């Protein structure tokens, strides 16, 4: 989401870009990393001073623990389990959300009936339903995938729903006049027009798929990063807790970068409109 809409080719794009290419690139990277570095330094300093190390560990200890985990190979089975759960949960949730959101977005009648139920359903705290999940999906990967998929579904569903409803009616009509059938209308008009919303939903869903899986693993599991973090937390191993969290962050960040790439490609057309300085 970082450089789509507002990097419009303003006044002097050539000059700007060549400048950026030579000196500004590493500088930009530095700027991007700066807050992270400051945060790490602050953490290192504050740990043991502002707050006990037992609660927040400290970066050096976390790095050390991470090294141990990977060197000993202890973490790989957890990574593998959680990774699978994340990927499946995310894909199922996105697919369901796109289909559901699209269907209700296209049909106001269905929407009027079902939308309140979807919303209400999401108000249910899933942790209160842990026994049901276990009965239905077991204590293996199934229940985590289900939980992550549900979290993802909701966000994608609502974004697609809103996106489809925001599509310009006149373009739709024009396409119908040109002879489009429903399938063609979907692929040529509704999906591209709703793409900004769909992408937003998919991005919002990334951290929530992680949360879903981790909550699931906290409740029941035999393997996975959530379990690893939970164990570390109950055995007073703060470095382990934060090592686990760092790995999750890496997951999220990589997924976010990938989604950003996809978004920039799909929404290329938006980056071109307009010109001139409107940013603060």
């Amino acid at each position, binding site marked *: 989401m970082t450089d789509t809409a507002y990097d419009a080719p303003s006044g002097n794009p050539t000059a700007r870009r060549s400048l950026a290419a030579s000196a500004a690139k590493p500088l930009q990277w530095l700027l991007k990393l700066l807050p992270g570095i400051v945060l790490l330094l602050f953490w290192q300093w504050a740990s043991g001073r502002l707050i006990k190390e037992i609660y927040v560990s400290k970066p050096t200890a976390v790095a050390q623990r991470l090294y141990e985990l990977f060197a000993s190979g202890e973490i790989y089975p957890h990574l593998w389990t959680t990774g699978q759960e994340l990927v499946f949960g995310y894909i199922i949730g996105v697919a369901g959300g796109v289909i559901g959101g699209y269907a209700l977005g296209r049909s106001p009648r269905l929407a009027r009936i079902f939308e309140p139920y979807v919303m209400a359903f999401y108000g249910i705290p899933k942790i209160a339903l842990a026994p049901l999940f276990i009965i239905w999906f077991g204590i293996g990967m199934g229940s985590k995938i289900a939980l992550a998929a549900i979290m993802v579904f909701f966000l994608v569903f609502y974004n697609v729903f809103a996106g489809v409803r925001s599509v310009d009616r*006149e*373009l739709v*009509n*024009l*396409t*119908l*006049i*040109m*002879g*489009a*059938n429903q399938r*063609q209308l979907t692929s*040529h*008009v509704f999906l*591209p*027009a709703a*793409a900004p919303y769909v992408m937003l939903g998919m991005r919002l869903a990334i951290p929530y798929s992680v949360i879903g899986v981790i909550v699931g693993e906290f409740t029941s599991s035999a393997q996975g990063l959530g379990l690893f973090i939970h164990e570390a937390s109950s055995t007073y191993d703060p470095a382990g807790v934060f090592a686990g969290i760092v790995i999750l962050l890496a997951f999220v960040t990589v997924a976010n970068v990938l989604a950003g790439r996809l978004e920039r490609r799909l929404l290329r*057309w*938006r980056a*071109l*409109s*307009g010109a001139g300085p409107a940013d603060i």
Partner: protein
Amino acid sequence: MHDRALVFDGIGQDFPSPGQRNKVRVLDGISFDVDHGKFVAVIGPSGCGKSTLLQMAAGLLIPTRGAVHHRGRKIGSINTEVGFVPQQAQLFPWKTLAENVELPLLLRGVAAGERRQRVASALNSVGLKGFEQHFPSQLSGGMQKRGSIARTLVYRPDIILMDEPFGALDAQTRMVMQSDLQSLSMEAGATVIFVTHDITEAVLLADHVVVLSQRPSRLLANIPIDLPRPRNMFEPFRNPGFEAAYDAVWTEFRSQIDTGRVH
């Protein structure tokens, strides 16, 4: 009845008027026919309901009163047998110009090779060669409008509805495109209804000129233009009988000036 492509039968349209109780009456009992292969120009003051009328012909709007018939069938839903050039260009912003023009062919399942060739020739004929890869936001207003025209002409619909197609074009470009449109309709026998503000254009292109009045608009006149074809688009006054026809339309149109300064 057979040779009538479109019949407007006493159509009327009321729109809700925000802030007021009663509705705005836009069209009021307008009836006229459009024969196969004919060219009908619609002129009338701004806001009188010309675009509304075209929307009815395309099935985008069901008239409050009366009905539009297409080949004898009452239009009750979207009419996929017409081509529609809207007033705003309405290109798809997420498609390049070439993809925009290609879309109707794609929707109709035309083969890729033929598609490419037809798109190229359509873009060429509206003077947009070299801009295939541009997105609509990278085109000028007139270029967008020309793209929109190409998108409709490329699939050669039987009936073409055009809403001020040449309004945003300079005199030169406009003449060339008028001439092209005339050839197209003569060769392919296409029926065309087009809205314009330019009386010269209306007289030059049309077989009939429909003149609408101020809102609530009624049909002021439906004037046949009997100039021989092909007509010379580049020097209008060279066409024999042009001036008489022009004056006939202008007289009708002008009659509205009494109604108020600007309606």
